[in-house]
């Protein structure tokens, strides 16, 4: 088993906590002195920097939300003067107005360290060719993994997202061994492979880091089979840093968080109380080494569980179990909380190839409706040309989803290639209720 930084990745829990406590107290002092909104929040909560001596004091601190970043758009939460900031990124705007984040030279270096760890987690070495097919630009995915690959000493291939045929040709011609992209883009590349006569044997891929959107075990199987590699989950968000806040190791049993840089908590999103290890709740991060934007108790809206057991890979860093979805992504259908990832999981359990789908939410006669639109594939006509067979298929899909989410859905078959293909985060949900509300208000 290889490690990038064994000393910290395999450190005893007591040492990790001591380091976190020390770094936390310094960070809190620094934000209190340099970030006006934090000083105000802490004064309102009657917390003084000297009250925070260890991680046991963490829950005395107020939370930070995306709204705080929006209220102080663009640079109001920065803890350093602009002369120290060497780069900015902006969130992908998945959930509304984009937010801006900044990095000092040291922050960039820490990020590269975490991304290098991520690559080593999945078996990367300096002999690898790492093709980064996340978008380069304001999105953190591309540059984040790029710096990690260079830090590791591997060969970075800055492909960026898009130009899909070229991606496949690079796999083949450049001898790419590790890829980084969104899981939905990986699926669309597999489709393109089949259409253009590429075989996985044409490639030397061994591992892929897939992140920036939630995905399922069923998709993992499909990507591994389709590309002939091991598929690993990687997690990150621009507010905290970018990809590689946590990454799966080769045991594929949860993502190890870089705890020397980030303290993770799981809270009950309603009561805001911290939950014990093993309980599922909203993930909260505190940055303890960031200079430009050290967010305190940032509420990610992602749902996860923290597991502190030592992993078989030897790492002691806490693992976060795959988010079930984002609290932002959650749909409320007739009063029931529904995560799109639950639907995907049920859908793929019936038909593992059904990866081109769209969830359309609407309101008809004051009743929420959820329609699952599925693209037809040539092999579905081979089931026989009988209407019965297709109806049986849609009924099986419907039953699986209904029982998984507890809400009745309708399933509609579409002709092939009618849904838009994504090169970044896939658009899986179309909520027409929001559009209607907008018009009704006028």
């Amino acid at each position: 088993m290889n490690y990038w930084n064994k000393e910290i990745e395999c450190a005893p829990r007591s040492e990790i906590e001591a380091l976190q406590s020390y770094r936390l107290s310094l960070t809190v002092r620094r934000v209190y002195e340099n970030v006006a909104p934090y000083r105000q929040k802490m004064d309102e909560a009657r917390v003084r920097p000297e009250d925070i001596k260890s991680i046991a004091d963490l829950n005395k601190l107020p939370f930070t939300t995306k709204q705080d970043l929006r209220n102080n758009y663009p640079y109001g939460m920065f803890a350093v003067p602009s002369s120290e900031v060497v780069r900015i990124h902006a969130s992908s705007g998945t959930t509304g107005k984009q937010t801006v984040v900044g990095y000092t030279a040291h922050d960039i270096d820490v990020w590269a360290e975490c991304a290098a760890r991520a690559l080593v987690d999945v078996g990367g070495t300096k002999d690898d060719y790492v093709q980064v097919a996340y978008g380069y630009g304001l999105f953190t995915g591309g540059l984040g993994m790029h710096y990690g690959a260079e830090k590791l000493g591997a060969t970075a291939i800055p492909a960026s997202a898009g130009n899909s045929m070229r991606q496949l040709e690079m796999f083949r011609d450049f001898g790419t061994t590790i890829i980084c992209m969104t899981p939905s883009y990986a699926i669309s590349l597999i489709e393109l492979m089949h259409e253009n006569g590429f075989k996985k044997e044409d490639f030397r891929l061994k591992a892929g880091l897939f992140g920036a959107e939630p995905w399922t075990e069923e998709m993992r199987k499909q990507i591994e089979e389709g590309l002939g590699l091991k598929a690993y989950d990687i997690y990150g968000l621009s507010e905290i840093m970018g990809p590689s806040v946590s990454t799966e190791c080769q045991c594929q049993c949860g993502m190890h968080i870089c705890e020397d840089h980030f303290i993770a908590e799981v809270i009950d999103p309603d009561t805001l109380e911290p939950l014990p290890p093993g309980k599922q709740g909203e993930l909260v991060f505190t940055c303890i080494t960031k200079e430009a934007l050290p967010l305190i108790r940032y509420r990610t809206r992602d749902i996860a569980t923290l597991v502190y057991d030592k992993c078989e890979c030897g790492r002691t860093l806490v693992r976060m179990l795959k988010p079930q979805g984002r609290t932002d992504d959650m749909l409320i259908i007739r009063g029931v909380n529904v995560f799109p990832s639950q639907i995907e999981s049920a859908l793929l359990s019936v038909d593992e190839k059904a990866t081109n789908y769209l969830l359309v939410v609407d309101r008809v006669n004051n009743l929420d409706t959820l329609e699952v639109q599925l693209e037809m594939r040539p092999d579905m006509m081979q089931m026989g040309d009988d209407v019965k067979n297709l109806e049986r298929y849609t009924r099986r899909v419907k039953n699986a989803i209904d029982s998984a989410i507890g809400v009745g859905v309708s399933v509609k078959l579409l002709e092939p290639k009618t849904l838009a293909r994504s090169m970044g985060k896939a658009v899986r949900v179309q909520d027409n209720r929001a559009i209607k509300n907008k018009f009704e208000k006028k």
Partner: protein
Amino acid sequence: MLIDQISVFVENKAGRLASLMEVLHNNGIDIRAMTIADTADFGILRLIVDDTQKAIDALKSDGCTAAVTKVIAFTVSDMPGSLYSVMKIINDNAINVEYLYSVMGRNEGRADIVIRVDDTDKAIKALTDGGVNLICKSDLCK
């Protein structure tokens, strides 16, 4: 004895059938028989054409989902009771009909019927033994 029939998945939306017909027209395909099975959301268009492979290629390159199915065709005299006598043979042999449709007639005094059953081999034998006049595609496409 078996005839190639093309089945095309058709989404239920305005103008879809017209655009499919345009594709066939542009490729000079002659339709000999057709029917549509429809549900609330989609339909399956079934076609027997003069050049099956050409039609399939044209439809697929247009982005359609299409497949070829084997069906049986027979001819009966165009008078009351003749279809009944054929269906009786089918029924007596415990063969299930999945669907059936008639071919656009162009022969005075005779009706051509296309039938899809659950057990094709058994149906061919039963119909032949029963004296039913099975026809092949060249008969259909005269």
